[in-house]
């Protein structure tokens, strides 16, 4: 492995290895910068929006997403809490009931398991039972590929996508991250925004600067048009899928890549339209295979697009084991471009 590669590996798991910095001169923003911009702009725009979480204030967050926020917005709107995720979630609910618009950070998405009950039993059910809206966002870095092992690499979205009353967002690009987060902050429901730490500093693009730029919750996006096979995916896997699609084009296979962006409510229409067109579906996802997000996507295709299918609905996802640390194991655990190409080949040959 090259020295620089090693540097990246170290930096990668190294939480906020460097301060997040700003946009490039070309006006490009990383995914991390885009997220910071979304929060900053909404806090400027709406006095009711405030942040709570661990080490988000003076320290600026483990990944430095909120660096500089406490200086601008003060300790009342940027609240450093103790390590008590259940109570962080409960506080978000209680303050949302009183008309505030909390954004709670979990330092890693993995720690959302420590606030699980207040989220699923209080937040998720509350409006259905009482009619009281809960405008709250829970956000945190999810996903693997950064050598952070099984407590700092999980994809918790399936737990919450199954749970009634929560909206679950998993953007793959800086613009989508910014636009969806703004939508989430303006939404009147409990919304869970899973950032992907592998993407944070790796993906850059020109991101809209209009203060009212938003991306609607519940709409998937066809990232790449194709006619032979649809890869339905989200999060970091979108980037792997696009790389694979480029490779496959040389082999003369035309791949369409659908980026879900929102997990719940799921945009089944866009998914089905793509399958109608290609008649072949590869469902690619990073959450464990068994009952991961792709299980729902595949089941939906099998039920509602059956007549259009020319081949089995294929799934490609990590096995149901904890995310391993060793580069040798994590590389085997995560689907990579080669795995995707192989799957597509098998599907095309069907």
């Amino acid at each position: 492995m090259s020295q620089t590669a090693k540097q990246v590996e170290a930096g990668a798991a190294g939480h906020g290895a460097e301060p997040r910095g700003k946009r490039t001169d070309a006006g490009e923003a990383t995914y991390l910068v885009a997220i910071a911009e979304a929060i900053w702009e909404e806090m400027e725009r709406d006095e009711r929006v405030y942040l709570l979480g661990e080490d988000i204030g003076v320290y600026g967050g483990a990944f430095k997403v909120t660096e500089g926020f406490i200086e601008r917005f003060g300790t009342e709107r940027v609240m450093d809490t103790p390590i008590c995720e259940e109570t962080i979630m409960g506080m978000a609910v209680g303050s949302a009931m009183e008309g505030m618009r909390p954004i709670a950070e979990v330092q890693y998405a993995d720690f959302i398991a420590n606030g699980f009950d207040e989220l699923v039993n209080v937040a998720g059910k509350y409006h259905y039972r009482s009619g009281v809206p809960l405008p709250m966002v829970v956000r945190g870095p999810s996903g693997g590929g950064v050598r952070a092992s099984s407590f700092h690499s999980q994809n918790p979205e399936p737990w919450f996508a199954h749970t009634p009353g929560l909206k679950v967002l998993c953007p793959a690009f800086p613009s989508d991250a910014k636009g969806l987060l703004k939508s989430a902050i303006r939404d009147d429901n409990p919304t869970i925004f899973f950032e992907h730490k592998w993407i944070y500093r790796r993906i850059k693009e020109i991101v809209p600067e209009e203060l009212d730029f938003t991306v609607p919750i519940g709409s998937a996006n066809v990232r790449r048009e194709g006619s032979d096979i649809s890869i339905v995916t989200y999060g970091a896997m979108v980037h792997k899928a696009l790389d694979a699609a480029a490779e496959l084009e040389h082999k003369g296979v035309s791949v369409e890549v659908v980026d879900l962006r929102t997990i719940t409510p799921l945009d089944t229409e866009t998914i089905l339209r793509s399958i109608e067109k290609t008649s072949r579906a590869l469902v690619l996802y990073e959450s464990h295979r068994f009952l991961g997000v792709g299980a729902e996507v595949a089941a939906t295709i099998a039920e509602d697009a059956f007549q259009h299918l020319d081949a089995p609905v294929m799934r490609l996802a990590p096995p149901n084991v904890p995310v391993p640390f060793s580069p040798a194991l994590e590389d085997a655990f995560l689907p990579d471009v080669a795995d995707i190409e192989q799957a597509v080949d098998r599907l095309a040959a069907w």
Partner: protein
Amino acid sequence: MTTAMSSQTGAQGGPGEFAGLTPELLVDVLYKLKLCRYFDERMESLYRQGRLPGAIYSGRGQEGTHVGAAFALQHDDSLFVTHRDLSAQLTKGLELKRVMAQFWGRIDGYTRGRDGNSHIGDWQGNKTFTVVSMLPDSYPVAVGAALAYKRKREPNIALAICGDGSTSNGRWHEAINVSAIHQLPVVWVVNNNGYAYSTPNELEFKVATIAERAAAYGIPGVRVDGANVLEVYEATAKAVAKARTGGGPTLIESVALRWRGHAGHDAAKYVPKETLEDYQQNKDPVQRFERLLLDKNVVDQQQVDDLQARIEREFTEGYDFAQASPLPEAGDVVRGLYAEDGYWSSEPGRAGGTG
């Protein structure tokens, strides 16, 4: 619950005899006490006759805590309780007839039939949190509400009630700890009835009282006789005033026995017969207060009888209202999950008939 009870005096009145309440308010307290007691008894007998769907969670014997604590709140103060504390919500202002509609799963219930019995709340009308079973999930939520009052410079406070059982749970610790760090306007009330369901205090914690645990959070803790509604009211009123004026949280342990089991099916055999009898004969918060007002001529027997008659009339009206209230529209089961579908901001569908 020997330990828990040992330090109880059961003394009447307390400093300033009537805790500064006017005769009108004292009568109102008596009305609430008798209403909650009557409601609890009648609903249990309906349950026993198999005339109620689902479960019931009696708070009988603890009305002193429920009424005393809730009576110390202003309308805009918020209340966060458990399934045990319906009497506190009735005291805060919930309408009997809509409460009863909820028990029968009717559309006019506070949850529109989505939840039942004392899993109830009326945030829009009376600032009470819709009860969540998980204990004590409302404690962290109360912290959030109190945080909002402080941030918005509003004079309101939040009051949360749980039982002794909740004190062994991590959320209880976290919530009180955070409220203390930020000196939030919240009052923590724990109803210590000696048992968590069937589990005695000795198997819940190693300390003699819950009040003394307040020191671990750097906040004041007081212990009151839950059978003495005025003592509960006075301690709560003090804590409320302190919280309202920036003095931070207080922990109040109110000791009183739950006369019935955890739920309708529980005969509470785990409570020694003598303990129960002692409470029913000597520590009945309703009886004791009625006696007090009669002895001190705040009310005469006629007034008491009129109150009772009014309560029974209200119960019958509530019962009839509930029975006449339609069931929810079956098709609406999928509505109201998210705020934007408008289910909760519009008149709900009502199924024909009364089910």
